[in-house]
């Protein structure tokens, strides 16, 4: 469904992505994992074309067989990709309801959109309670629900989420992941960026590990979860003395 091939993205003179390639199959939940500064957010922004106009510098992005790496963001949204950015980015001075309405901005079918608003409010009861409140006054968790609900209003085929669990309690994190799983079961393909590797590996069907702007591993979560290096460096389960282990791990990933 989504095919990213060899993209290279620069911030002025800094190269953030050194040729990233991966694929997202229709109907799956795919996770993009990696430590701080690895380039996960940059990858999603590159796909959404939110960076400078001439980025990605190299490589291609295809969605449903169509090149999108030189399209405008709003065209990409219309093709069926929806994006929940890092840090939610709700419209703080619009009400919850107005935020949801903006999610449906690209839609022409008013009547169906009305029905969808109802279904979003049913899925996220907390939003119904707060629907006339300014979004900026919601708690972090509520804002995350709003950002997801808003993104669903455009009826996306692919939903990309950047660290949906950021700053949420373990309980709320689990709730968000359950919601993501439900959305996926309803037919929306999901590309998920996460720091919470444990959770992400539990819920995804396939995962890519990103390091320093490169994909260093790609595998099924069952396999990654049992992998010694992943256990040690992403799940934080120590198996040997870390300095030595870290070096060995660096060597390993560099030659992959």
């Amino acid at each position, binding site marked *: 469904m989504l095919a990213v091939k060899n993209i290279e993205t620069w911030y002025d003179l800094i190269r953030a992505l050194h040729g990233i390639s991966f694929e997202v199959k229709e109907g799956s939940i795919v996770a993009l994992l990696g430590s701080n500064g690895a380039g996960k957010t940059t990858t999603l922004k590159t796909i959404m074309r939110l960076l400078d106009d001439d980025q990605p510098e190299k490589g291609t992005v295809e969605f449903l067989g169509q090149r999108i790496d030189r399209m405008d963001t*709003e065209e990409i949204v219309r093709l069926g990709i929806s994006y929940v*950015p890092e840090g939610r980015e709700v419209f703080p001075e619009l009400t919850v309801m107005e935020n949801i*309405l903006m999610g449906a901005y690209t839609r022409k079918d008013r009547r169906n959109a009305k029905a969808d608003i109802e279904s979003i409010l049913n899925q996220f009861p907390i939003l119904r309670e707060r629907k006339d409140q300014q979004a900026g006054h919601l708690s972090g968790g509520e804002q995350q629900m709003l950002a997801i609900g808003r993104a669903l209003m455009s009826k996306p085929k692919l939903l990309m989420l950047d660290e949906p669990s950021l700053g949420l309690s373990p309980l709320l994190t689990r709730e968000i992941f359950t919601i993501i799983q439900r959305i996926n079961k309803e037919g929306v393909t999901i590309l998920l960026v996460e720091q919470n590797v444990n959770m992400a590996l539990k819920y995804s069907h396939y995962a890519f590990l990103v390091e320093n702007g490169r994909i260093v591993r790609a595998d099924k979560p069952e396999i990654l979860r049992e992998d010694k290096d992943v256990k040690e460096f992403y799940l934080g389960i120590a198996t040997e003395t870390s300095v030595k282990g870290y070096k060995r791990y660096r060597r390993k990933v560099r030659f992959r």
Partner: protein
Amino acid sequence: MIEQLIIEGLAVGACYGLFGVAVAIIYKTSDVVNFAQGEMGMIATFVAFHVLTVYNVPFWLAFILTTAFAILLGMLIEFCFLRPAKDPTVLGFIIITLGAEMLLMGLAGWKWGAEQKDFPFLLSVQKMHKIMPGVVLNEWSIGVFVLSILIMIFLFLFFRFSKLGIAMRATQQNVNAAKIMGIKVERVFSITWAMSSLIGAVAAMFFAARSVLDPNFMMEPFMRAFAAAVLGGLASIPGVVVGGLLMGIIENIFGYVWPEWKPIVAFVVIVIVITIKPSGLFSKHYVKKV
């Protein structure tokens, strides 16, 4: 007597408010004051003057042509001056709008000359109507009240209930988030400038009817309306309107008691407000939680 002063002040104040709203609409989307606002209104008023005196068209037609011109002018300036500038700083933006101001002023001087003209406005400042015992009001003031109330009601409904209006507010608050909603933000900027230019042009025609028409005539009203807008807190439209009304009243009463001080009242007020409450009297802007 005092009623008369207040109601006259309110009329002028409504005009300041209207022009202040034009400034505020752009300020809200770009966070910077458009210093060419006055001259955009000035050029539009000259266009009205031109079609009225040269082609002798009826006033209503001239009014419609002028508003259409103002809309195009706003979009043109946004397209030619603002859009090519990639991420201008606040200072850069100010320079750009100042440049546009100079250009428009030069253009008006070249086309229509620097001498002062009378603007043949539909509503006269002389014709008085008695509206309540002891208070008379000229046609001009009645026109200002009616028009500004209509425009305010329209703006309120537009920004509150229309999809485009809400999208404009959304773009003001977060451009990138607006993009990922599928909002065409460039079109939003274009519409913003068109609306602002239109409202500014209407206010400018009223100002011209009260004074004279020449390439400099909007300088002072711009400064006063700007002061009024700052008084009300630039980012809120109702605040700007109230600021304009207050400014009109203050100015009129001071002007009556100490006529020689009238021209500087506006600036004394601005200094006091900026010292005491820099965000304006009525601002309640959301501050992003970090």
